[in-house]
């Protein structure tokens, strides 16, 4: 109980901090990215780590494991997530989605053999994409400034802090056996990087300035997720015909 109270307090403090950061957001060149000098440095660092370690390992992962095995692994971790997604559905008052994600968890955990097979999707039970950052967004918490986190990459003040909550609720992070936990977290991370290999090769081709491109794409993606794929159109002041 006491632990819970401390956590809640920490969360409040964190949210307050996010609000304050968002408040000074007008200092930088770009109002959404006041931390740009730091962010750019961290982005280069992450990019270097990615090029030296993550990307080669992810390529190896994709080259060695056959597709069905990678799908199975991806499904397994995806199924584990569904419980927390369900909670976030409910926190946003999306009861139908909550029911869907609970149904997915139930079907896939049993008939799908611990989630390795995603039968629920095959019968039309679509997975929803939710996390605590989106829940905060749904309740009207602004994203705050863009922040590039070490190793984890693009985020915002709101989503970065919410990620701490997500991690607390993540069964994989709660595995008691530390070596097993680390292996699971590592495999999941590499698997996700492998899924993004094609996307990142497209970004290399597309971007004039990779930092700005990734930032803009990330912010759009998060906004899109908060609005469940149908964000209100932003004013197109300049698309004059």
């Amino acid at each position: 109980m006491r632990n819970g109270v401390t956590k809640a307090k920490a969360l409040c403090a964190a949210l307050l901090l996010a609000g304050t950061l968002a408040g000074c957001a007008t200092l930088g060149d770009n109002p959404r990215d006041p931390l740009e000098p730091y962010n750019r440095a961290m982005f280069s660092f992450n990019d270097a780590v990615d090029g030296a370690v993550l990307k080669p390992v992810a390529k190896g992962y994709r080259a060695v494991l056959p597709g069905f095995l990678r799908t199975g692994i991806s499904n397994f971790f995806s199924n584990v997530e569904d419980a927390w997604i369900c909670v976030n559905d409910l926190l946003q008052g999306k009861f139908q989605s909550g029911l869907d994600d609970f149904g997915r968890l139930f079907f896939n955990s049993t008939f799908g053999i611990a989630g390795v097979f995603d039968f629920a999707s095959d019968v039309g039970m679509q997975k929803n994409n939710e996390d605590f950052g989106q829940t905060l967004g749904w309740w009207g918490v602004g994203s705050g400034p863009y922040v590039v986190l070490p190793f984890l990459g693009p985020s915002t003040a709101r989503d970065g802090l919410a990620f701490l909550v997500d991690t607390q609720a993540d069964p994989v992070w709660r595995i008691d056996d530390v070596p097993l936990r680390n292996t699971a977290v590592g495999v999941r991370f590499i698997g996700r990087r492998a899924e993004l290999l094609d996307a990142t090769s497209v970004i290399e081709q597309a971007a004039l300035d990779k930092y700005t491109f990734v930032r803009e794409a990330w912010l759009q993606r998060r906004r899109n997720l908060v609005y469940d794929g149908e964000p209100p159109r932003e004013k197109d002041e300049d698309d004059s015909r």
Partner: protein
Amino acid sequence: MKTTRVRMKAMSPLRFLLLALLAPLAQAQNVAPDVLVKSITEEVVTVLKRDKDIQAGDPKKVADLIETKILPHFNFTRMTRIAMARNWRQASPEQQKELTTEFQTLLVRTYSTALSNFRDQQVDYKPLRWRPGDTDVTVRTEVKQPGSSQPVGIDYEMEKTPNGWKVYDVKVGGVSLVTTYRETFASEVRAKGVDGLIKSLAEKNRQGAQPKSDKT
């Protein structure tokens, strides 16, 4: 209605034949946007799956495919205008033309990279929500790639023109291919002017013309 029938009667057989031959063309311009997206996608996917050269990463063949099948259905001027935002009006007509050409090259090249990665993906088409009078619609599709548990949404923003429906934006996972460039374009123009941006785009396109060793 009546007048058309009268004219038909008066038509010489040759003119009638010509009209009959051209009719499918005229129809193509009235094709519903979702039907258009589906038929083009299916056509392109069929070629991609069959063509060994494209699978081996032959950039020229991919570019040809895009040029003949996909380009005619895009409105690149509008795409460039949206990406340029308020700076569009600052650019002279010649600069606007150059910008459009360079941006088109960049987008086509990006698209080729994405397409040559295409293997066993499966494309699903979402039902289109629109009213007959609409001139601006979003056609939603979902692409599922093997080895991944989650499909990626690819949405086409389309506008009705006298020449049929044209795509003016593509959104991948909610990320607009066009507006993602806005900030980059704006800061380039701020720092180096419109000509500076044209130069940067041309430079990027020159680099892209050389095949990368990093191909996955």
